[in-house]
């Protein structure tokens, strides 16, 4: 065996040789071994001596000069504060420039897709500069200006509803600059459990070949085994006694000063690599779970309300249950490789097991193209289910993400009447042409309901929530294999019987209350109705009506009872955020952006919110840095369990091995060949 087999991770440097010996047939010296990290592969360029390389740091290459620039080290501190149903977050991103150059850092990061970002502060040493909300182009101009004059400046922009970028100009050599963002989001509630997520990294995206522009600004670099770090603390004032506080993603340290007072929660391991989303859950003690909650607030002369209502369970009548026709779609694209495809398979298997023989089903898998297990929906007989399970176990994750083809196939079957037509979409949402998919769902949904199941440690939640919203279904996140069972079971139980359909929320008065979401989804068991509204001249009561196989549901809640009206809860921001989201949805499904842009801009400026058209900018005019800076992208940590395109392809054949074995065998045969009898015989007799 050759020596090279024994050499572990090496970097090959042939630039020195390349300039010295230009003969094309000569063999490069093999191999000049340097420090042995993944990231140490050096660019093939004379100006990049290996001294530039530090273990564990990502190297970037300037477009032309090819000089390696060290990305600033990023650590993040997240402080969350929950009051009832509303969470307020402060995220401090600390950029430490470890190089001897002035750098301009760009960091692309996700935030919860319901986050209403409303604050920016730039901290350099002891100085604090408060950012302003401006129209996007104006913010960019003042940032560029400051950047060119050597001032420290920071610009926070929204690239997509759940994807943001921070740019920091003029970070001096070995200097640290802190960017502090604040935002607000609503807490989710499902089947007795409250949940809050902080997304830590991105899922690398795939965009179909014909939509390359969709990837603009959304493919930041990734690093393996290192990346930004994260520490997190949560002050939880749930308003009710808590039975349980847990996280399915991280170990927690929980401090409870009293049974009902605020609880302090932090990550047990302190600072961690930001390679998976943080998911926090809490469960109120039994009987103290809310049946309804109504918060009100005044802002700019308007009343805003947040309503959560848990309709009573009328008791499910098995006779009245409608048969289901469920189409499962499973994403087998490359980004699903690793543990993701395993989770998806488990999820689907539990879904198949939950079907009854009266139900019908089909399974569609897609990567570069989509194919169905059966030509059409088949009855969920044990044989059919077994066949589907067998095929599921053979699936491998490879290839692109042509989601539309799969949806097209699923929506191809006309839904029968008196049947619950459901599409369950299991994916990591790693797709670039979101808009096309949304348009398709909006245009073709009909009576179907689309449920999305997010797989992996950092699924594209915006995509999946939006798809479910447009599909009038729900979104379920499954972040680790251990919880697949429980979470999926909850979904299947839900799918079995919608509690309330055709839900209508009426704030009374002149009917001018602007309620969001405008199209209320079906309600399932354990799931609350959560709406935010700008009330206008609302009546004294909120009325909620709905239908369920024979039952009519009608509930009333008095308005004006909210004593919290004087407190700044930020409901108006949540409302504005949803309103903006709604307007942006209009653009996605075909309205002219020219009409939508001014309305979104006005709303965002009024409520001081970051949006696709408004950005936050902070400039420190007091200090200047000498010398031109380099643009550097700060890499994200690759999501845990995700191997992006999978691994690189296997590109070695066993041919040399066979040839060597063959040669050795022949040589051995030669060695043991039978000699001439006489010579052999003599030897034998002598013994």
């Amino acid at each position, binding site marked *: *065996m050759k020596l090279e087999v024994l050499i572990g991770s090496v970097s090959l440097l042939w630039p020195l040789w390349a300039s010295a010996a230009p003969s094309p047939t000569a063999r490069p010296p093999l191999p000049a071994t340097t420090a042995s990290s993944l990231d140490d592969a050096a*660019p093939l360029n004379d100006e990049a001596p290996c001294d530039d390389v530090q273990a564990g740091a990502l190297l970037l290459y300037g477009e032309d000069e090819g000089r390696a620039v060290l990305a600033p080290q990023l650590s993040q501190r997240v402080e969350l504060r929950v009051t009832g149903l509303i969470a307020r977050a402060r995220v401090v991103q600390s950029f430490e420039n470890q190089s001897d150059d002035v750098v301009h850092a760009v960091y692309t990061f996700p935030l919860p897709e319901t986050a209403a970002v409303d604050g920016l502060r730039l901290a350099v040493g002891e100085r604090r500069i408060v950012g302003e909300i401006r129209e996007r182009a104006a913010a960019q101009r003042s940032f560029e200006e400051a950047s060119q004059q050597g001032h420290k400046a920071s610009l926070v922009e929204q690239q997509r509803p759940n994807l943001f970028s921070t740019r920091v100009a003029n970070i001096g050599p070995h200097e640290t600059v802190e960017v502090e963002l604040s935002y607000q989001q609503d807490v989710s509630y499902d089947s007795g459990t409250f949940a809050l997520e902080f997304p830590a990294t991105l899922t690398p995206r795939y965009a179909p070949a014909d939509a390359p522009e969709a990837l603009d600004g959304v493919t930041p670099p990734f690093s393996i085994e290192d990346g930004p770090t994260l520490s997190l603390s949560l002050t939880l004032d749930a308003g009710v006694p808590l039975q349980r506080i847990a996280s399915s993603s991280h170990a927690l340290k929980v401090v409870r000063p009293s049974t009902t007072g605020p609880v302090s929660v932090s990550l047990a391991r302190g600072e961690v690599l930001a390679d998976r989303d943080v998911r926090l859950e809490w469960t109120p003690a039994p009987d103290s779970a809310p049946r309804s909650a109504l918060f009100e607030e005044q802002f700019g002369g308007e009343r805003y309300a947040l309503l959560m209502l848990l309709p009573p369970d009328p008791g499910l009548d098995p006779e009245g249950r409608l048969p289901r026709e469920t189409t499962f779609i499973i994403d087998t694209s490359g980004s699903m490789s690793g543990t993701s495809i395993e989770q998806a398979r488990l999820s689907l298997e539990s879904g198949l097991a939950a079907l009854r023989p009266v139900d019908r089903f089909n399974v569609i898998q897609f990567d570069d193209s989509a194919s169905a297990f059966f030509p059409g929906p088949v009855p969920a007989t044990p044989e059919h289910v077994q066949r589907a399970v067998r095929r599921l176990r053979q699936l491998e994750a490879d290839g692109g993400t042509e989601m539309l083809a799969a949806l097209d196939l699923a929506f191809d079957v006309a839904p029968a009447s008196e049947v619950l037509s459901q599409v369950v979409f299991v994916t990591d949402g790693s797709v670039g042409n979101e808009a096309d998919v949304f348009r398709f769902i909006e245009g073709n949904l009909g009576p179907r309901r689309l449920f999305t199941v997010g797989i992996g440690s950092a699924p594209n939640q915006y995509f999946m929530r939006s798809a479910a919203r447009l599909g009038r279904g729900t979104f379920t996140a499954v972040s680790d294999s251990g919880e697949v069972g429980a979470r999926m079971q909850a979904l299947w139980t839900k799918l079995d019987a919608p509690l309330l359909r055709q839900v209508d929320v009426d704030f009374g008065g002149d009917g001018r209350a602007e309620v969001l979401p405008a199209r209320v989804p079906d309600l399932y068991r354990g799931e609350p109705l959560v709406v935010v509204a700008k009330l206008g001249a609302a009546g004294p009561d909120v009325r909620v009506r709905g239908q369920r196989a024979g039952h009519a549901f009608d509930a009333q809640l008095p308005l004006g009872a909210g004593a919290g009206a004087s407190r700044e809860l930020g409901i108006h921001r949540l409302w504005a955020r949803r309103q903006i989201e709604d307007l942006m949805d209009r653009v996605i499904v075909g309205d002219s952006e020219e009409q939508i842009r001014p309305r979104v801009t006005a709303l965002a400026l009024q409520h001081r919110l970051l949006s696709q058209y408004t950005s936050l900018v902070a400039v420190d005019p007091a200090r200047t840095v000498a010398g031109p800076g380099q643009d550097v992208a700060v890499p994200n940590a690759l999501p845990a369990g995700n191997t992006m395109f999978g691994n690189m392809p*296997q590109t*070695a054949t066993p041919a040399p*091995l066979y040839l060597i074995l*063959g040669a*050795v065998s022949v040589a051995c045969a030669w060695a043991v060949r039978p000699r001439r009898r006489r010579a052999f015989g003599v030897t034998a007799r002598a013994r």
Partner: protein
Amino acid sequence: MRTRWRYAVCLGLLLLGAACLARGGWIFGKAAVAQVLLRRAWSATRAGDARVRPWPWADTWPVARLLSPARHVDLVVLEGATGSSTAFGPGHILGTPLPGTGGNVALAAHRDTHFRFLRDVTPGEALYVELPDGRVQRYAVQSARVVDERDTRLLQTPGTWLTLVTCYPFDAAVPGGPLRYVVQARPT
């Protein structure tokens, strides 16, 4: 007695040796012969047919042709860098843009056969890619790196690139090692 035993061992080893040599040779033979058959499929592709399967049971088709005149390399590139396609020619790594659509086009092939020449390429050296519509794109080699197989960042390099991936080290006897040799070239 002893002689017969020797005969048996010798014959066994010879058969084993022949089998190994045949299998090793078959890999090289397949790689070479397939390219000849692929040439026909490529001609049909150039004539405007899409997804021309080189033989009826093939699950891949030609998407481009890779040339290095200086090294006498002329290869038909297949769709997909799976084991079943790279036995016959370089494969286009799915998830990266197709040749001719811009972006970072990544191709992979075996270090023992089609991409053996990569160990000798030098910076600035020209590579050509012929597209189904007849256009020919010229690339100049910029860099070569050894990376871990899990490190697929180079497949995501922004901008227009040609990225060629093969196994490293070139002369390792045992396949399946964790390292890849990645050559990147820029259009000129």
